């Protein structure tokens, strides 16, 4: 059973446009929600993360929006660039214990010039 559901599976955006990726979870005990970025042939790397005490977190062109009541969170990439072309994974965990991450299935983003 997929603990974190992610959509869309793939996304094509024009340069300068906004990329939006959505995730949903069921386990209300999750209290840490990171997004990882993965380039081909590389391991995932943390992009941005949020905890449920805030509804939004922004770092440069990347913003996480978090809706605790709906158990949903999303990644917005403003002014998308070709260099943003990668696979993006949302994840969730409980920070107590070993902080095991449950990943979404990934979104392959392609930004066309």
């Amino acid at each position, binding site marked *: 059973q*997929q603990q*974190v559901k*992610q959509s869309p*599976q793939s996304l094509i955006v024009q340069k300068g446009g906004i990329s939006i990726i959505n995730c949903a979870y069921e386990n209300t005990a999750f209290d*840490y929600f*990171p997004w990882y970025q993965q380039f081909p*042939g*590389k*391991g*995932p*790397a*943390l992009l941005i*993360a949020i905890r449920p005490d805030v509804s939004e977190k922004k770092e440069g062109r990347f913003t996480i929006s978090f809706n605790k009541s709906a158990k949903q969170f999303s990644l917005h990439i403003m002014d998308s660039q070709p260099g943003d072309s990668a696979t993006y*994974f949302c994840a969730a*965990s409980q*920070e107590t*214990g*070993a*902080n*095991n*991450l*449950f*990943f*979404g*299935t*990934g979104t392959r983003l392609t930004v066309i010039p």
Partner: protein
Amino acid sequence: NAGVTQTPKFRILKIGQSMTLQCTQDMNHNYMYWYRQDPGMGLKLIYYSVGAGITDKGEVPNGYNVSRSTTEDFPLRLELAAPSQTSVYFCASSDLWQTEGTQYFGPGTRLLVL
């Protein structure tokens, strides 16, 4: 710091063979993890360790074993390789105090079982 290193980068195994995937981190992180990544499935946790001598199962542990004799090393053992174990394997490490939960991933090992 080299971060998290994994060897080998790529391996072809025959059904029934065994192998060990190596993982080393030089960040003195307490927590280490093994994931497998299959197309369209995201990453699934195989095993994890919260410190030397302590390991536990993740979501998909069947067919794998691990050990953690030192803080730095966390090898993953496949005893009887099966085609279903064809995947890309990632090792990661973290430390709640140092990294606030961020997991740092290695470059991965691509395994093909024929």
